[in-house]
């Protein structure tokens, strides 16, 4: 029995009649090693713990948290959460999640080999990554080379009968590169993710980081034009995360989703099947339960271009007259659960990126985008970001280009998908990457 679950139980047991109480307790730590020019630049060994308590009474919700598990702090958090209830306004749909009988998929989220991995070897990995990256191309310098791992355990218990405890750990390496040639400097990055350090493909991270920076050397500003773009897997993953925010059940019930009235409609090219599947062990964010303690599950959001479902937590589901899709997301003990996709993936095609480029003939390979947070509005659908990449001419990648934007609308881009690659890349984020071809995008340059 976990100490954290016992603590959560003790809090829940203090519920007064008519009160719903949820306690979320977590503890974790991480290691971060940064190497620069063969030396450890910094080594961070961090630990944190805390508790968040939600109290609902008469349709009113109050919340409080503390970044400690000291007994007096826990008592204060419960008292504060209770005090805060009085200031919420009654909401007929307010309430905690309730057990729904869906079994959690067994996942191996904890790796003993990682937990026991010696510090010196972590440092070695970051050094090795730096060396391999430098060796890949003489024009390359390193900004930083990193090894990071994290572990955490969390428990959630409620008066409605939810009781969950779990723990997980993970690790990754990342490297930021600079490449110089003839007064021009460009940047790149590479990373590798695995359940345990020995499985990280350090060589691939090094090669990608060197390539990303060097292939942009000599890039110029392209002429404005309408183009077909091939999004690199990392860019597609960022695009999918924005699409997911338009399918967020909370945005739907509050009238903020541009697809709110479109269930059952074709909103995308028939090639598009978008799945949220945290039960896939290959996903970096794979999990057995969601932020409210319900089983995480596979949900088809868009099937063959048709909008099939929105993501919901207990609240948005109740309000929409449906059941939770197991999509409560929680940013730790300091907040209440929202709604969001857990592990997005486009069902892949079969072709390589090179084959897609050959088919496109003339277009643009987008290697990176900049300013997704500032130039994309998920409510209106306007999409505009800075970008860098390579022009595609006669079915091959040609000259590098930078300092331009690509723009369309989210609605159009989904419909304008003309191909999906087979090159799935599991990235350290909530969406997997894959090469994606979209037509009719406006490139703004000279």
């Amino acid at each position, binding site marked *: 029995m976990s100490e954290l679950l016992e603590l959560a139980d003790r809090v829940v047991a203090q519920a007064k009649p008519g009160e719903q109480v949820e306690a979320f307790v977590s503890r974790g730590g991480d290691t971060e090693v940064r190497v620069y020019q063969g030396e450890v630049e910094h080594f961070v060994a961090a630990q944190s713990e805390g508790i968040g308590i939600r109290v609902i009474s008469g349709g009113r919700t109050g919340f409080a948290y503390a970044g*400690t598990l000291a007994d007096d702090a826990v008592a204060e958090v419960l008292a504060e959460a209770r005090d805060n209830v009085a200031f919420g306004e009654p909401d007929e749909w307010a309430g905690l999640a309730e057990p729904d009988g869906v079994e959690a998929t067994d996942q191996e989220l904890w790796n003993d080999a990682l937990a026991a991995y010696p510090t010196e070897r972590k440092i070695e990995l970051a050094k090795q990554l730096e060396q391999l990256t430098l060796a890949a191309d003489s024009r390359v310098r390193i900004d930083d080379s990193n090894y990071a791992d994290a572990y955490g355990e969390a428990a959630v218990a409620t008066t409605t009968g939810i009781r969950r405890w779990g723990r997980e750990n993970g690790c990754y390496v990342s490297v930021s590169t600079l490449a110089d040639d003839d007064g021009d400097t460009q940047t790149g990055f590479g990373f590798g993710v695995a359940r345990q350090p020995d499985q990280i493909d350090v060589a691939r991270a090094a090669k990608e980081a060197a390539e990303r920076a060097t292939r942009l050397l000599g890039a110029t500003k392209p002429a404005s034009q309408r183009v077909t773009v091939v999004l690199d897997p990392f860019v597609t993953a960022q695009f999918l995360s924005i699409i997911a925010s338009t399918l967020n059940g909370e945005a739907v019930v509050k009238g903020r989703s541009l697809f709110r009235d479109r269930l059952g409609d074709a909103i995308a090219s028939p090639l598009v099947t978008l799945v949220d599947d945290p039960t896939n062990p290959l996903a970096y964010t794979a999990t057995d339960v969601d932020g409210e303690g319900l089983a995480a599950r596979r949900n088809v959001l868009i099937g063959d271009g048709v909008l099939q479902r929105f993501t919901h937590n207990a609240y948005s589901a109740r309000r929409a007259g449906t059941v939770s899709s197991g999509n409560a997301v929680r940013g730790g003990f300091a907040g*209440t659960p929202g709604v969001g996709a857990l592990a997005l993936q486009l069902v892949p095609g079969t072709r390589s990126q090179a084959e897609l480029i050959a088919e496109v003939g003339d277009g643009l390979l987008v290697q990176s985008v900049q300013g997704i*947070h500032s*130039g994309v509005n998920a409510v209106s659908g306007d999409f505009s970001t800075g970008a860098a990449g390579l022009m595609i001419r006669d079915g091959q990648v040609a000259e590098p280009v930078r300092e331009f*934007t690509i723009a369309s609308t989210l609605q159009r881009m989904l419909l304008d998908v003309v191909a999906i690659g087979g090159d799935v890349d599991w990235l350290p984020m909530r969406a997997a990457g894959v090469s994606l071809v979209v037509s009719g995008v406006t490139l*703004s340059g000279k």
Partner: protein
Amino acid sequence: MADTHLDADSDVMLIDPDVLERTLQVALGSGAEFAEVYAEDKRSTSAGLDDGRIEQVNSGRDRGAGIRVIKGDTTGFAHTSDLTPAGLAEAAQAAAAAASAGGAAARTVALTRAEQRVVNAIDRHPGDVPKAAKVELLQRINAAARAAGPQIVQVSAGYADTRKRVLVANSDGVLATDDITRVLVRVSAVADGDTGMQTGYQTLGHTIGWEVFDQHDIEELAREAARQATVKLKARPAPSGAMPVVIQRGTGGVLFHEACGHGLEADLVAKGASVYAGKVGELVANPLVTLVDDGSMGGEWGTVAIDDEGHPTQRNVLIENGVLTDYMWDHLRARKEGRRPSGNGRRQSYMHLPMVRMTNTFVLDGPDDPADIVASTDHGVYIAQLGGGSVNTASGDFVFGMTEAYLIEHGEITEPLREGNLIGNGPKVLEQIDMLGNDFAMGMPGTCGKDGQGVPVGDGQPTLRVESLTVGGTAS
């Protein structure tokens, strides 16, 4: 009373000086050159309104210490939420081990307490204000935004206050404290029309107390968000391509933050990851431009009495009449270069390592009448509100979003435009600022992200024109 809460030392001294000295000794013990304890105790209250109702009031408490040890070129760091002598000693040992310290002679530390500096006197601590008053504020915002017009279909609003007591002690003998109070309000409105939905967004944030609401009209803020959303219902696609861009006062500071601010951070400069490396003394901008970073500016969002390494914040002139005068410095970089830090060592919390960060970054007034700037622009874009931005400091390419913008035709502001990003290259854009107004204003509060850490920052500028920026719309 301004001084009710700046009372006894016991209140601001989160850790006893004797314990601090012992902790630093443990951290240094094995021959490190530098050790530091950063402790904070933060209390926060927030409230959210959405869809016409107060959804929730939240309270939070974060308390802990981060310990940093520097040995040679290596920094070791550990943190703890346990502020007892034993908890601190354990973290100090972890930090020392992380810096891979060997076994050299022990050093003792004698701390000298610096007097707590008050850059913002707080009239009324938000912690003393009833929660009901905070909730009522949001209800007023909601009512004002919805009353602005029938097109407004949704409103969300948030309130947050924090009070953070900070203590920094290091092996150089520094012992400094701060007591920081911040209040923030945000409002977002959605308007619906034949062309779909549009959004408007406004924030108000200051490093002062509840008196901020005596100085600012919260309902006006709500109406402004509603107006923005409504105006954009008539917006047409933004143009695509390079053209002159005029940026309204008090909204374009983020342009400088991205175009050159980050590139003037000494850590990036030292790694050769900035286009401004090696350019001190050179003309890097149009001579109209004087750029300042000032963390001591009263009441602004990026204001603190001391930085997160215990150094007093100050006014730093970065670019003077177009000439690059200096970079921004933290302890680590300043120590390497044998100079004084500039008060720019900041961190998100006790769980984070400090690094070089901006505070309040702004451009001083120029000579031009703002009306003339628009009138002398034949064709271009007028930006009434910028969104966020980001920069690649190595290439200098940066983007920023326009959340409210208009076409300029024949010297007049005409039709509203849909949202999008603009892109430019920092060094080129600084040269191409060809008109600078005389109507300086600070902008909305911001959060600057770097290496995964967010810190509050302010910015400001007069109305200005950039001869050529690339506007990333879809219209030809």
